[in-house]
């Protein structure tokens, strides 16, 4: 039920982000979701891509430091309160969200939330118990 997320270390220099997207584009890898966190010196780019292994290999080849993180993708109705109900549920169970990002699907009726939990397995168990729709990796990559 987990999703492989690619994390990339980026120095805050002009053109570094474009270098990543160029490599992925040339490799024919599609970006499904993206989040960029940054400080004054460096940033961490987090990506869900159509072909994790290929993207990782190409970026490593180009000298980037990359990591694999297991995240959880959740589908919620694209309406007010959708995210709040999930966060409340997690809070009650004492599961911490390290970070998260979201995107709205093209069809327009649901949003996808990507979560990084401090305890991933417990997080998945909690969501399943509450009948939350978890999107498995292979489905998400092919969306």
């Amino acid at each position, binding site marked *: 039920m987990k999703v492989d*997320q690619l*994390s990339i*270390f*980026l*120095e805050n220099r002009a053109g*570094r982000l474009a270098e990543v997207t160029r490599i992925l584009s040339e490799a024919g890898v599609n970006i499904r979701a993206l989040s960029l*966190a*940054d*400080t004054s*010196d*460096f940033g*961490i780019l*987090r990506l869900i891509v159509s072909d994790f292994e290929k993207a990782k290999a190409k970026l490593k080849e180009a*000298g*980037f*430091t*990359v*990591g694999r*993180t297991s995240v959880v993708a959740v589908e919620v109705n694209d309406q007010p309160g959708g995210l709040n109900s999930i966060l409340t549920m997690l809070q009650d169970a004492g599961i911490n969200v*390290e*970070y998260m990002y979201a995107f709205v699907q093209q069809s327009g009726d649901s949003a996808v939330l990507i979560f*990084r939990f401090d305890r991933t397995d417990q997080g998945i168990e909690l969501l399943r118990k509450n009948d939350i729709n978890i999107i498995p990796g292979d489905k998400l990559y092919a969306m």
Partner: protein
Amino acid sequence: MIYDVKNETLPREDMEALQLRRLKSLCERVYANVPFYKKKFDEKGVKPQDIKTLKDVSLLPFTVKQDLRDQYPFGMFAVPKDQIVRIHSSSGTTGTATVVGYTKRDIENWGELVARCMMAAGASAADTVHNAYGYGLFTGGLGAHYGAEALGATVVPMSGGSTRRQVTLLKDFAPDVICCTPSYALFLAETGLEMGIDIRELPLRIGIFGAEPWTNEMRADIEKKLGITAIDIYGLSEIMGPGVAIECAAAQDGLHIQEDHFLAETIDPVSGEPVGPGEEGELVFTTLTKEGIPLIRYRTRDLTTLNYTPCKCGRTTVRMRRVTGRSDDMLIIRGVNVFPSQIESILIDTEGLTPHYQLIIERQGNLDTLEVQVEVNEALFSDEIKSLQRVESKVMKNIKEFLGVTAKVKLVEPKSIERSLGKAKRIIDNRHKD
């Protein structure tokens, strides 16, 4: 002109025979009189009588600066205290001071050696020497002073400071020779111009400069701005002071080492094995005649090459290339000695890995700043900002705690630190750029 024709132009075989005789006697003296050396010799399993050829010097133990500190103040002295007539010492601002003692004979030899240097630089007994090296515990001032007197020159014992007065006396006393640090020479020239005195128009014709590293570009600058010949003199207080080696005015191509008094070797700074002539290595000296504090294989940490080819000045002594680097990469940041290896140890201790790193030193106003750039690798990397920032602040805290220096730690991408010839360039020191 050569001051001591006999000793400065000895054929190689004669020089080596003289050095061997003195080396043997030195080993016997230190073994008998300096407990520190007896212990060192015994630990290496070497006896004074094992020295049969000059090459056997490599059997002997090294001496390092820390040994002098450990023996503070008088533990390295090889004669009873009543035979010591003078003491010099390093400032000790970065740890225990190192102390050196001279016998009457040492002081005489020192004067003779500096006199040789002055003549090699083009000075003579008829000249007046303006000595602007500091007098006191520092060896520069008194070393140059006694040398100028031994030469028979007239000395102006100016010492350091009072720059405008120095310029006035350069004009009024019209010295032929000046001794000071190269940077001070440039400062004198500038001050002179402010005072309306162009040093180029004075009779001054020779500058004997040492006590700090300088480049050929700086030499050209000094020669242009002062209208003199700028000569590089080399020495260190542990070995004697100024006068261990000097450039000759005739060639200005390497510094003649006073080989009848100091046996010079170059070694691989890592393995300690000797390197050949022409190959860069760490300069190591054995004092052949010193009585007060003779040293065996003292590691100077200065990097140079030795050149045994004959010099056009007629001297046969080996020449060392101008010193521009050190084997220990020591940096002084806001008065604190910092070795890149210490930073490396802290990085290893902090995250348990051997990262690529680089030290960048800048000067902002009068303050040095140190930035430690560390390349991120997969072991160090995390998808969370806070854990990378935790690494940065931990390294910063440990550097402050262990070295007493505040550093900015910056994580950078892999391979972003330049590799030169397969070896990482650890230091970028931008302080001395104009």
